[in-house]
């Protein structure tokens, strides 16, 4: 799994490339620590290249969300595949932040 990060006009554009399983969700955690230190008003995660995410990976996104929302920042997910979209909807993640296909 890889992360490409670009920062522009207050947006943090993060492209995640590859599946997020238990092992590399730890890498996600480390990367998210770094992102939290940056200045941005909204983090946009592009998951076009993510075939699946385990609950451990989803957990990292939730922790990231909890951390930024407490500071008045926003988060959004885009480019998600149909399978993941259905899953995210089913566990109601869309109640927390926008999820776009």
């Amino acid at each position: 799994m890889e992360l490409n990060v670009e920062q522009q006009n207050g947006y943090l554009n993060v492209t995640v490339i590859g599946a997020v399983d238990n092992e590399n969700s730890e890498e996600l955690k480390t990367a998210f620590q770094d992102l939290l230190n940056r200045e941005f008003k909204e983090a946009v995660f592009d998951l076009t290249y993510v075939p699946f995410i385990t609950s451990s990976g989803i957990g990292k996104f939730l922790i990231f969300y909890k951390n930024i929302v407490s500071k008045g920042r926003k988060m959004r997910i885009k480019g998600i595949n149909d399978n993941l979209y259905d899953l995210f909807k089913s566990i109601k993640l869309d109640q927390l932040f926008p999820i776009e296909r």
Partner: protein
Amino acid sequence: MSHNGKPGILVVDDDEMIVDLIESYFSELGYYVSTATTAEDAIHQLSHENDIHLVLSDIGLPGRSGLDLLKIIRETKGEIPVILLTGMKTLDTAISAVKSGATDFITKPFKLETIRQVVEKNLRKNERIRRKKQVYESLKYLNMNFSFFTYEFNPDTLSKELTDILKKMRFAPEEEIQQFEVVFTETFTNAMEHGNLELPSSAKSDDLLFRTEYEELREQRLNDPRYANRKIQIAFECNPNLFSLTVKDEGPGFEWKKYLDQHHKIMKVNTHAFGRGFNIVQHYIDEVHFNQKGNIITLIKNRI
């Protein structure tokens, strides 16, 4: 193959000279050759003989044409190779026939050697396809059992391997099969961490900066023989209709009933660190069963 191992060919042409010529040529080469001068006769022979492996037919037959014959063969005999013989006048017809299911075509006038090459090429190709199908058929049935000590168990690795097996078995379209890797990972991780290592979800925290109590405890118990030497037993079965996965841990079990009923009632996002993996499993799997104690889980997924 039949007739003492000889491949069987049915030659169909209203020109008896051509039929005789091809019949004697292929008979000398060791083929079993059957002949017909009309599509009706060919259909009759195909329905009474099981030893025909390839049909060589003229397009311009009296009555029903070679194209009609092709259509009937595709409907009744499946993928048996059909090679059409055609004059230049019907070349366009032959090309569109190949598009609609003919295996190949040969233009008249032809050399017998050319026919032999085309026939042999397509018989070889068909044999390869047939064997491949046999392999896939046999791959539809699978029964595997695994047993691991907790200290040596890697849920991600085994999940990938089982997912690869489902891909090879063509259990579902590839993009849908990937979702099962998540199901396997969640199930194995639950058995390992919450079952055998008895790690409480309450030890997880929202901290990204430091190691959580959960991670500390996980490492500690993986080095403690009382937990690390517990076994995880796995049975994986796949048949043409479904796959099933049974995972048994040696932990104290859990109150599965309150989680099992939860899935269809999710109204609100679960931001806590427990139950999410199980929600994912229930989202993708058709049936989830537990034993009374809650240390054996069986998942069943019907073939898509």
